[in-house]
């Protein structure tokens, strides 16, 4: 690698941060500073606060339910651990998590909505939202808790097994130890549910994220979108900080690499069946629900004929966003001279990740409305998604940095390579699947995005996730199911590349 390549990488990385995060942030601040006050006045309306409370409560209930769904799987997942022959479980788990959440919502819709409505009336939408969230996101707490158990729980579990059966030993000895991981997972889930737009929208309930999009579309001035979102932002940043503190506290435990605990007295399938059962319930059931609604496979042909171009555009934009996210992330996490700049860039990128999508969309519109080459074209969509998912790239870059042996870098430096060039050359070459997986993950998340894209999409550029929502609103069940299945394929490359990354790291 020569010096010009490093310079090029730095310039593009910094440029992406400037374009996706800094300019929109500054643009938004300028618009706030120079624009009029909020139309509804400086007091938050009771509706805004009630909606925030309702959203927080709903997110809280969903967090608890998600935990309850995840708990039975933790023991089995801990047993799978790093065993080669059962790594398929992680593959399916990753796939379950990366599927667009509204696909779950549409799947469950036909199965439970009529009965729930008959029993619960107007509460049915909220109950459905909670269940869909739980069915989609339970792998998050399962992964957190499993990581904790594998890391710190073996010794205690082994000791407890001397006096109790495996189930009791797990409950008494392991669960208390997992409190830190559990708390961190709860914060992550709660934050996720607070800003999630798709499921409440698909279940016809109003939460803060859906309302924020309405403000974004009906307001003349940025302040009418940003100001009502302040309470949510404060809550999110506080929750994010708490999560970080809790995670740091829990991550400092014993780093032992004992064999998985279930080797003591519990068989392979006996440990795994709860995982399989929960996967069948939460992933298999809604997809079967979708499949039975598909009257004819010819609808896939119709989809290609009518929306083939739109699908290609969506995939191309998602792919470009994935590349941009990884480029930005490697610059944020890379070895570079501008440590303070990159620190600030990282914080602002994570802040954009915590923002509701409607707010990110508003920032982009405010910043680029007068820049035709971006605003009138696909780059505004790529920049928006880079802002939303830039943190994924940063995590990937950080993982590579952490995994790359410093000895190899030092050796490269003694051979004449610069620090940044050495880090890139060795880290990227050894861990390219992590980069590829991060790009694919960001692309998958991007492809499922509706709220921000609905604010920035230029004329003539198709976006499949929005077409899916249109089909939902127009009651076009066949095309809804067909597009859902197609979008469900989006995370497959991310999962396969993630799997590859894991194998390479393991090797």
């Amino acid at each position, binding site marked *: 690698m020569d010096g010009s390549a490093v310079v090029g990488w730095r310039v593009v990385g910094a440029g992406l941060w400037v374009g996706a995060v800094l300019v929109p942030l500054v643009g938004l601040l300028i618009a706030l500073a120079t624009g009029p006050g909020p139309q509804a006045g400086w007091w938050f309306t009771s509706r805004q606060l009630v909606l925030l409370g309702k959203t927080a409560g709903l997110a809280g209930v969903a967090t608890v339910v998600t935990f309850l769904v995840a708990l039975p799987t933790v023991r089995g997942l801990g047993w799978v651990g790093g065993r080669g022959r059962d790594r398929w479980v992680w593959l399916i788990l990753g796939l379950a998590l990366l599927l667009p959440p509204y696909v779950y919502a549409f799947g469950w819709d036909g199965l439970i909505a*009529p009965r729930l409505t008959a029993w619960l009336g107007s509460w049915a939408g909220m109950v459905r939202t909670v269940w869909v969230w739980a069915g989609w996101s339970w792998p998050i707490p399962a992964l957190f808790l499993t990581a904790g158990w594998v890391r710190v729980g073996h010794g205690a579990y082994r000791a407890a097994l001397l006096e109790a059966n495996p189930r009791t030993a797990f409950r008494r000895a392991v669960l208390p130890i997992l409190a830190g991981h559990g708390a961190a997972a709860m914060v992550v889930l709660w934050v996720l549910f607070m800003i999630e737009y798709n499921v409440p929208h698909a279940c016809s309930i109003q939460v803060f994220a859906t309302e924020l999009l309405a403000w974004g*579309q*009906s307001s*003349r001035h940025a302040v009418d979108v940003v100001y009502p979102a302040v309470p949510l932002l404060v809550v999110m940043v506080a929750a994010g900080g708490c999560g970080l503190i809790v995670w740091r506290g829990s991550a400092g435990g014993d780093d032992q690499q004992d064999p998985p605990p279930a080797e003591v007295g519990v068989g392979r399938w006996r440990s795994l069946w709860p995982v399989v059962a929960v996967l069948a319930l939460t992933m298999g059931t809604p997809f079967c629900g979708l499949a039975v609604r598909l009257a004819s496979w010819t609808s896939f042909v119709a989809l290609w004929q009518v929306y083939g171009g739109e699908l290609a555009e969506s995939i191309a934009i998602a792919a470009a966003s994935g590349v941009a996210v990884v480029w930005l992330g490697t610059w944020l996490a890379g070895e570079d001279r501008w440590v303070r700049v990159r620190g600030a860039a990282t914080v602002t990128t994570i802040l954009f990740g915590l923002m509701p999508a409607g707010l990110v969309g508003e920032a982009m519109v405010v910043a680029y409305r007068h820049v035709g080459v971006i605003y009138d074209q696909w780059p505004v969509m790529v920049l928006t998604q880079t802002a939303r998912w830039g943190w994924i790239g940063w995590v990937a870059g950080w993982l590579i940095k952490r995994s790359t042996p410093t000895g190899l870098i030092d050796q490269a430096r003694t051979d004449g390579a610069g620090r940044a060039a050495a880090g890139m050359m060795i880290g990227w070459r050894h861990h390219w699947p992590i980069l590829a997986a991060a790009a694919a993950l960001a692309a998958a998340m991007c492809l499922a995005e509706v709220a921000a894209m*609905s604010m920035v999409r230029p*004329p*003539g550029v198709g976006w499949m996730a929005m077409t899916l929502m249109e089909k939902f*609103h127009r*009651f076009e069940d066949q095309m809804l199911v067909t597009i859902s299945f197609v979008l469900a394929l989006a995370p497959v490359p991310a999962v396969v590349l993630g799997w590859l990354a894991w194998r390479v790291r393991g090797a």
Partner: protein
Amino acid sequence: MRCISCACGVVVFALSLCLGVGCDRDRPVVYCSADEEFARQVFAELERTTGVKAEVLFDTEAGKTTGLVRKIEAERDRPRADVFWSSEVFNTIRLAEQGLLEPYRPGTADDVEARFRSPDDRWTGFGLRGRVIGFNTSKLSREQVPKRWIDLADAKWASKLVMANPQFGTTRGHVAAMFALWGEAKAVDFLKRLREGGVRLADGNSTAVRMVAKGEAALCMTDTDDVWVAQKRGWPVELVYPSMGEGLGTLWIPNTVAIVTGCRRAAAARQVVDYLASVEVERLLARSDSRNVPVRPGLLKELGMDGPTGAGSVDLAAVAKVMPIAIERAREILLR
């Protein structure tokens, strides 16, 4: 590193090829708040018959029309849209009053009644939709459903009612029409009674119909086309045409088409407006699942459809005039 650079270069090149480095500067840009399903058919016909391919920006169900109107207002210094096809009329009138729509009288719309055209030719109406009450047929019979909008304020109905957010779409104009036709005091009282009765708000008219069809609400304020489409899909939904008041009849809201002031492709924009305001498009929309009612009396008769009765007494401009204050009041009452 060279490989990664090459890969990124290939991705960017492929993307550029796929999407075009810049947009086709000859194609007219249309902002369209009509439902995508029906509008796509119209634009396909436009391309087939005139050879004009439009770059269309549709809006979302939740942000109906208002989102695009705000875009046109915000882009006044550098208009991106050439043509605005709105699914309603009142916001179009507001845009025309701000000078954001250019005068142009399409030659294809001479047979459109004057009340469905702008007096200064800044917009042309076509394809009406009625404001109706949709109801779940397993919960209510047609006889039970109120026949006047004002009756919905009764707590008996308000608790079972769902309506779209009044800041958006035709609901926005509907609420403004209440203020214009009933007077502010009566309209405010109506909204307050709805709120006290427990009316629920939904993200758009079709979402309201969906909630009714699923039994989460018994009845909803919506547009005719949302009920027709739901019926076509087999949902248990019916509609009644409530009266806005004595001698006023149903509120019928036309689609409108207009050229954006300062647009960059004026000639192509006129072609699009000529086509959208033509009798062919009215016929196409009337025969679609949307079943829009033509504004041309001749076509109405030809298709044997029920049209606006007594709608002549609804002064569209007067409704548009009170819209800002009406929506502000509705926001204060229903969204606080």
